[in-house]
């Protein structure tokens, strides 16, 4: 477990000192807002409320892909990946460390993006923020865990930026379908759909277990 905390601390400290991933992801999300506005112009406020879950998750997914790609690209410099592989104990804990760092980073971006989208599209999220944040966090666990596993693979191939979305998007489908459903209910102030939340928890569990168990084969060198 010490390994997990050490890697989490290392990643967050590095990010705090450079802030490059966070800034890039945020900027990307804000740009997406502009793209959405041009793609779907002249809507009524009520329609934006209906569309917002889909728009938010589109931005979240692509921003996560950007961040996850960088999460391991950094480790390639100075052969730091070999250092990670040498971490004592089960390598599943290395996975947990990398995944939780990505989770915290992506969550931060998601929160600021939600605030910005709420302002830009005139949807008030202050009343429902707790249900909203809970759903988003639950889905982000799935994204960060499977994303960490796949990014560790993609980073050591040619065209890594191209490969990660192709590997990851099919695996994200269960997360996204449930997340959009639950987020829509949360934004509308309705009770959260039990089945969607249940599915998110199941998928999070599966992805965490798969990542924990198979990360050994990904780092092995």
């Amino acid at each position, binding site marked *: 477990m010490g390994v997990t905390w050490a890697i989490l601390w290392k990643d967050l400290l590095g990010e705090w000192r450079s802030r490059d991933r966070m800034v890039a992801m945020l900027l990307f999300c804000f740009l997406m807002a502009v793209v959405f506005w041009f793609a779907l112009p002249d809507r009524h406020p009520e329609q934006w409320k209906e569309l917002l879950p889909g728009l938010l998750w589109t931005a979240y997914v692509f921003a996560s892909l950007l961040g996850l790609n960088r999460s391991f690209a950094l480790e390639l410099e100075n052969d730091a990946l070999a250092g990670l592989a040498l971490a004592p104990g089960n390598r599943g804990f290395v996975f947990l460390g990398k995944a939780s760092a990505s989770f915290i980073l992506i969550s931060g971006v998601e929160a600021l993006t939600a605030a910005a989208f709420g302002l830009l599209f005139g949807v008030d999220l202050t009343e429902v923020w707790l249900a909203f944040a809970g759903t988003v966090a639950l889905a982000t666990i799935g994204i960060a865990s499977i994303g960490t596993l*796949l990014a560790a693979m993609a980073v050591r191939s040619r065209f890594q930026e191209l490969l990660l979305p*192709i*590997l990851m998007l*099919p695996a994200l*489908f269960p997360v996204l379908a*449930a997340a959009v459903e639950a987020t829509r209910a949360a934004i509308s102030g309705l009770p959260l759909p039990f089945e969607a939340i249940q599915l998110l928890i199941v998928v999070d569990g599966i992805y965490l277990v*798969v990542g924990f168990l*198979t990360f050994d*084969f990904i780092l*092995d060198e």
Partner: protein
Amino acid sequence: MPTSKPDRYTVPSNATERITSRIIRPLGVILVLLLVVYGWAVYNAPIDRVQGVIQKILYVHPPLAYGAYLGFAVTGIAGGLYLWRREEAWDRLAIAGAEVGVLFCTLMIVTGPIWAKGTWGRYWSWDPRLTVTLLLWFVYLAYMLLRSFSAGGERTARFAAVYGILGIVLIPLNYYIIEIFSGRSMHPENLERGSLGAGMGFPFLMGNLTLFIAFVYLLLLRWQVEALRADEAQRIHQRVGAEGD
């Protein structure tokens, strides 16, 4: 140069692969015979009163689906065996499973919309089963891209095995989610006894049998090709090494 090819070009060195490659040729003979009977049976099958001749896609489409799932199952299981035993033969079987699976899946995705246009009135309907199949197809195309974008060798085999296993995990997950979120499927739940019209049972059975044999035949052939390729690569490697000394 000798006029007849030496045996070593057609017989893999690995024991498992050598045994399986022996049944390829007899299987090919059986496949040709089955194809003749299958073609005859489909040709003579009655024309559906409601759907017309397009209903004959039934004799191709579901068998292709079984082949696709079978191919993906082979990939996942062979990947697991590779990670467990670390024998390259299993990795080569996983490649064969994915490629033949993608072939069957592609043909299924092509035949489906043709049938759908004729009976449901449009090519694509986001029917739960269609969506799942499409996603599955993407998973295994991604699997093949992962292999071709990686440098090859032991690491690629490990990565591909992990992704192949993930693909298997995704199949039930996607079914589950689509059960929850979409309306009822337009596909029949299963082919119950009696749901096929008179005279349709035999061609349907032949379709399943023939395409199953075709699947096994292609799988083994692909496996053999991959094994021979690995053998050849090793021979070249040894020769270059010997010349270098």
